[in-house]
């Protein structure tokens, strides 16, 4: 029992840091670079992706014994596309302004390799509980990564955070940070920090062991 609990917990937290989909696996780069120009856009895109990942994992895991392996990819795509279309309708109905901001990138969640990757690598091979833990962990890891990039870009590019001005009127916004190059700069900088910390940790662990 104890071992199982440890395993479940490990499945959940691995997506946050050790196997973070953005900073380690470098998956889902299209939304990561395109819609992280503000913190609210990042949060909205990450929430939409989380929703799709969670429900896709639920159904793929539930139906893993029913879906024949010859048609599994097609079936996963149908499941994922269904939830992407649903999230698109829900955002248009509930938060039309954010739906307008995210533009075509909501529909592009269908081709986010993070989602299809988790179905093929994990949900299709594990029980529902574990598949959902994995989806929550990976979804949160993706949310954290997008939020970090969005926060940096909005503060430097607009002088605000969640549309609230925080750097005062004297601050001259770095416009480039909300433009596409700003996405690459921020991602590169955060990857550098992430990898440096990971390497130092690995080195410290090696010395300890």
């Amino acid at each position, binding site marked *: 029992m104890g071992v199982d609990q440890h395993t479940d917990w490990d*499945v959940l937290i691995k997506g946050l840091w050790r196997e973070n989909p953005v900073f380690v696996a470098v998956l889902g780069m299209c939304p990561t670079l395109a819609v992280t120009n503000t913190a609210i856009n990042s949060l909205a895109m990450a929430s939409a992706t989380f929703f799709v990942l969670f429900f896709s994992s639920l159904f793929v895991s539930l139906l893993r014994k029913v879906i024949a392996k010859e048609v599994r990819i*097609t079936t996963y795509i149908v499941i994922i596309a*269904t939830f992407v279309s649903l999230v698109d*309708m829900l955002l248009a109905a509930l938060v039309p302004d954010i739906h307008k*901001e995210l*533009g075509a990138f909501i529909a592009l969640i269908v081709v986010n390799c993070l989602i299809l990757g988790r179905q093929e690598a994990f949900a299709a091979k594990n029980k529902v509980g574990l598949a959902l833990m994995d989806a929550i962990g990976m979804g949160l890891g993706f949310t954290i990564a997008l939020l970090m990039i969005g926060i940096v870009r909005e503060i430097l590019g607009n002088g605000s955070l969640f549309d609230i001005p925080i750097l005062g009127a004297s601050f001259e916004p770095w416009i480039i940070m909300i433009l596409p190059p700003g996405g690459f700069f921020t991602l590169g900088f955060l990857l550098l920090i992430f990898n440096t910390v990971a390497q130092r940790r690995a080195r410290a662990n090696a010395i300890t062991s």
Partner: protein
Amino acid sequence: MMSENQQFTSPPVTPDMSPEPGPARLIATLGLAGFFAGLLLVSGFVLTKPIIEQNKAEALKAAVYQVLEGCVTFEQLIWDGKILSQGTPTGENAAPVYIGVGEGGRVLGFAITTEEPGFQDIIKAIYGYDPVLDQIIGMEILESKETPGLGDKIFKDANFKTNFDALAVSPEIISVKHGEKKNPNEIEAITGATISSKAVTRLLQKGMAAWREPIQLFFQGMKQQSLPAQDQKS
């Protein structure tokens, strides 16, 4: 550490000894997936459609008030294929033209909805047209899926929007590079979003080509109707 990671991402592969499924099973799997996907999507569509329609109507209402400054009420016009007229639009004969009225019943102008393919998808916009000055007096984007940070400047860039404060429609509206605007019929394009800027130019060109003349005729007719009434009063 590495072996622990592999435990979750790549479980040990065991040889698949199960018999190969027949075509009927494969078709049934995909058919069922399609059926349930369709069921979920149609349910979602039916549930969200009224809310989305209401959001669009509110956005349209707000946009009309923005493109026709000082507007207190507006009315959608009817198009019979030849002339514009006032009445109750039924859907089939509803023109994408709204007459905006200000304080004292004065006609401020006409708001026209129009659309054109942009960089990503169809851009839907509404703009205000003043038939007396024969110029566009405001423009708002209703729907757009243009690239965040670039193409979406067509509705976020305040400088770009000033192009439409007093844009002459004759000679035909054209798009010029940023900083090269010399004439009142020119739109300064957004640097890095030329396709989106040109799409906005095209949608205004098309809108004006379709509705300028009918609006002028309708407006002249309104003025002629009001003149005898004023003569009677005097």
